[in-house]
């Protein structure tokens, strides 16, 4: 805009177009959350059941702060997973990598990907076809424990092997 002589008002048109469709999502939206929750099928006493996989074998491994290396306990769990997946060849899996809340969003996404990938590589080394294994990172977005203490953080630094039957590609 430019100014005219003193005491003359300039008219500067403002393009104040009414705002678009941006309001089409109301404030009361209640979409579904994301992440892997929901009931797991089967009986824990049936060794072929996903519930057995989750509870008896163990569907998750834990990591130290900022690390993605698998310790002996993690490898023991993953050996069990590999054995189960060999027997139950109908199942594919998505390995979810997670981080605790200490760290930026971007770094934690990358860190969760490292963790998921470490599990994937280990399962492949135990004979599971890489075609059956997908990875995803949720970073720090999906904590299972919500306190801001190491007791919670240690459970959130995890990679979870989620069974998905009939997953392709």
């Amino acid at each position, binding site marked *: 805009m430019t100014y005219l002589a003193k005491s003359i008002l300039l*008219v500067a048109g403002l393009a104040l177009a009414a705002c678009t469709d941006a309001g089409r999502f109301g404030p009361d939206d*209640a*979409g579904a*959350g994301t992440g892997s929750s929901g009931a797991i099928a089967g009986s824990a006493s049936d060794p072929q059941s996903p519930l057995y996989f989750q509870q008896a074998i163990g569907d998750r491994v834990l990591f130290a702060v900022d690390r993605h290396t698998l310790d002996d306990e993690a490898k023991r769990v993953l050996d069990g997973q590999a054995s189960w997946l060999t027997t139950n060849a109908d199942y594919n899996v998505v390995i979810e990598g997670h981080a605790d*809340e200490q760290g930026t969003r971007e*770094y934690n996404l990358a860190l969760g990907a490292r963790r998921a990938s470490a599990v994937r590589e280990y399962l492949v080394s135990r004979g599971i076809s890489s075609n059956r294994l997908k990875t995803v*990172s949720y970073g720090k977005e999906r904590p299972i*424990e919500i306190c*801001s203490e190491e007791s919670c953080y240690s459970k959130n630094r995890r990679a979870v092997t989620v069974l998905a039957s009939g997953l392709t590609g």
Partner: protein
Amino acid sequence: MMRLLGTFMTMLVAAGLFMAPVQAQDGPLRIEITDGVMEPLPYAVPDFVPESGAAAEMAVNIARVVAADLSGTGLFREIGKEAYISRITSFSSPVEFADWRAINAEALITGAVGVEGDAVTVKFRVWDVFGGQELGNGLQFSGTTSGWRRMAHKVADEVYSRITGEAGYFDSRVVFVSETGPKNERRKRLAIMDYDGANVQYLTDSASLVLAPRFSPSGDRVLYTSFESGFPRIYILDVANVGRRVLQSRDGTMSFAPRFSPDGQQVVFSLETGGNTDIYLMEISSGSETRLTRAPSIETAPSFSPEGDRIVFESDRSGSRQLYVMPATGGDAQRISQGSGNYGTPVWSPRGDLIAFTKQSKGRFHIGVMKTDGSAERLLTASFLEEGPTWSPNGRVIMFTRETQGAQGQSSLYTVDITGRNLRQVRTPNGASDPSWSPLQQ
């Protein structure tokens, strides 16, 4: 007491900047930005004069938004109407300077509002009270009733600019992530609002997790990361019609942390394959990708310099997370962060002189700024958890996410001046994170 200030202007160059008055014998009313201790400039903004019955409420509201904008900077201090001696009843009547001097109002803003149907006109003048003269010329904006807040922000930007000599930042918007639900079941949606938290509108529903929206340089598009497909992918969204499309969707990979190039034609982002995250550049029109880093370490959170010739990013190649600068074409990267602790989410200032960042050190998080060579690091804030700085269009203010500690932890948005002063929460209807500040609107 602050008095009329010198006419000379200096640019923001050194670190450790403060807004401060510079004493001078005469010259126009001015806040000079230099070193020193800031005493906010006292001003008065009486209710604007309604030029029709329909304008009465808006005339009051516009003056209140102007005052909120100016006082919100920490550079101005409003003198309340209970102190007034004079009343402004006509836009064209002469100002009784003595009455405003008597209450120590150094600047006076007068205005008038006309409403006719859906059309609004706002005119205003800025007065240098102690100089006994008008500062600049009267100006008039026209718009519609629904856009009245924008007109108020335009007035405040003009006042700010005339008194500080810098561009304002009030007629701007923020795109962010609106958060509801407990920490372990958090729902996130993209939302957009005025810089001051008014006029919140939602851009997505909360069916899919969304993260870190980033405005295009012209404010018309937004890049963000969504788990809509089940995997993190970068999407581009048109703000006007809320149309969106996925930008990058190679199977077996994750893409995230996108930002526009200064010309708006390219996107720099992180791509993860096989557990390793590197930085890539994509031309939006063709979708063609160029890999910029090639390392087994994590490279993420890239941000262009305003000239578009360099990119600052975060990497843990040294063993801890540090900040690096490389040419926009890739190649040798220079580490710039030198302190202890972990650094992340670097963002180049629109002025080009500073890089804002997140720092994690000794169990605390900070928002800080450093020169682009890594020198003169200054931490502006400290708390349990904060991250994700974004710059005001004029490079004076940083908005960021702060999250409170514990099981009931909530995210909200704060602003802080680059001097580290004037920390303020931005009011939002729900939890809020990952702000991205638009340029000044046209």
